[in-house]
């Protein structure tokens, strides 16, 4: 997978390679391009094949924050490892700025924070950061700066074994940010963090994005995906269900529903659906936009015996969208298997 010949690159060489990679990325438009990935692993005594990735496709454009969403076991962590070049696939192609991640030089500009931060328990953050900076060929002070940014400098000489889960997670992020990577792969970075830690990580992701980094992060906290990501890919059972702008996924029909009570029928302007809900003057009216709703409200306010009950936005949340998508996928699977 990785060649022994391609080791030890000087920082200046790394910078040149990163610049070349960036130029290649501008050509293809994608920092990450993974197409039709298939990966199985043998499980059990008989080594029965279990699919981890089953035709998964992911494209992440340069400079975007891309969310990776799916159930437990959907293939998110496996995909991250494939992108890192530490897990080979049986079929499909993976490219980071047009280069195979199995080539160590392609990973020069990649930072990675795993879902579970595991470090040698007797080492200190200072030693861990020094090790990673040496492997990257970057200067020592940069590592201390990052530890400081993440509030770990005062703990830099304490062994990692006494760290809380949140502190270990922050150290993992610090390690991922070393060497100012162009691509940041974050596998559930908010997992195990307290609200303050989550706020810190969110801020860090925004800062990194503002400095031009491409970020791919997986999360079960859908509010974070909705809040941070411009685009998202939803995967299930090792397959891509959908990929696109988060805004489009949460848009719904974009309209409004108005419930009001009035004992006579009124013709509401710009209303695309209007029907009586019971025999006691309860009406439901649907509007495609806010302007139509405003006109209807003005009209109803002018009628003395009309009573406005509720106004509801039809914009759906990311969670609703995901739930609907996963449920329909499950239903399809069930019908296929029967």
């Amino acid at each position, binding site marked *: 997978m990785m060649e022994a010949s391609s*080791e030890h690159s000087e920082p200046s060489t790394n910078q040149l390679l990163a610049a070349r990679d960036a130029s290649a990325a501008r050509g293809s438009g994608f920092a990450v391009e993974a197409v039709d990935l298939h990966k199985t692993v043998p499980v059990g005594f008989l080594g029965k094949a279990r699919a981890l990735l089953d035709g998964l496709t992911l494209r992440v454009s340069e400079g975007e924050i891309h969310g990776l969403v799916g159930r437990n076991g959907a293939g998110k962590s496996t995909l991250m490892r494939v992108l890192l070049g530490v897990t080979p696939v049986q079929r499909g192609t993976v490219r980071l700025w047009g280069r195979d991640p199995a080539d160590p030089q392609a990973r020069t500009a990649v930072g990675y924070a795993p879902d579970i931060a595991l470090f*040698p328990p*007797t080492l200190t953050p200072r030693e861990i950061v020094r090790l990673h900076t040496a492997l990257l060929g970057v200067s020592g002070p940069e590592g201390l700066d990052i530890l400081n940014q993440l509030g770990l400098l005062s703990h830099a000489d304490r062994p990692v074994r006494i760290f809380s889960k949140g502190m270990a997670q922050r150290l993992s992020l610090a390690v991922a940010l070393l060497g100012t990577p162009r691509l940041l792969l974050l596998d559930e970075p908010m997992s195990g963090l307290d609200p303050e830690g989550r706020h810190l990580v969110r801020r860090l992701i925004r800062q990194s994005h503002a400095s031009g980094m491409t970020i791919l992060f997986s999360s079960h906290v859908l509010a974070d995906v909705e809040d941070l990501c411009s685009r998202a890919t939803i995967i299930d059972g090792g397959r891509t269900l959908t990929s696109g702008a988060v805004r489009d996924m949460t848009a719904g029909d974009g309209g409004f529903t108005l419930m009001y009570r009035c004992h006579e029928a009124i013709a509401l302007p710009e209303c695309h659906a209007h029907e009586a809900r019971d025999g006691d003057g309860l009406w439901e009216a649907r509007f495609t936009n806010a302007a139509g709703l405003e006109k209807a409200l003005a009209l109803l306010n002018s009628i003395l015996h009309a009573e406005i009950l509720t106004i509801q936005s039809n914009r759906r949340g990311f969670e609703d969208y995901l739930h609907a998508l996963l449920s329909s996928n499950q239903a399809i699977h069930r019908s296929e298997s029967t």
Partner: protein
Amino acid sequence: MLVVQTMLKALVRGRLHIGLVTAGAMFVFVAVLLQELAIGESQRALVAIGLAAHALVTDATAIATAFVLTDTFLIGRGAIPLVARPRSRASFVVSAVIALCIATTISSLALGSALAAVASIYDAPAPLVLLAASVATGEALILGLVAMALRIRFASVFSTATVCAVFLMGRLSGLLAEMLERGTFGILKPILSAFHAIVPNLRLFDWTFLAVGGVGTARAVVPIVYALLYGCALVVLAILMHRRADFAREDR
């Protein structure tokens, strides 16, 4: 070198390594107690039991060290951010091998020196005891490298069981050679011969006979060259296995 340095720090601070070396020191004192029971042969008993304890503890230390290094820096989930750095995987394996060799050699020599010091108190030949202990380091290194190569590819239980089997078969390789020479095994002979060639000849590293004043020829160059060649083959095997290691498999 910083990778090796970091690996050594992690090992030295680990309780397992310190615990095994302490256990070795206790074995030396057990040897002192037991030699009282050997009427007229107290020196020989002290040296023989002490060297056996030294070999056992050094082997166990090397195997445990190999497992710790492999799990922490080469194959475990925690190793992914490290292995994903833009370096060849071979460099990590070589670093782990160097750390294993340094840690094992220091443990073996420290324990051997303690045994030699105790032996000198009881008028046993301390330099020969130290020499025998030094040669036994070769056995520990081979077993450590076998453990590392196995652990890179297989689960811990299987790796432990196999390395124990290699230890036993390696110690009995002289017996197997004699059997092959004298017996007739028919079509099994080539298989047994191949097996004998693959299994490390650990008898080469047992110089107890020299330390207890026995008769025999002892040329240090043989075990050193054997350990180097066998060790190099194991390092190449470990590099090849690690090159193919799949980090999607967490059930190992």
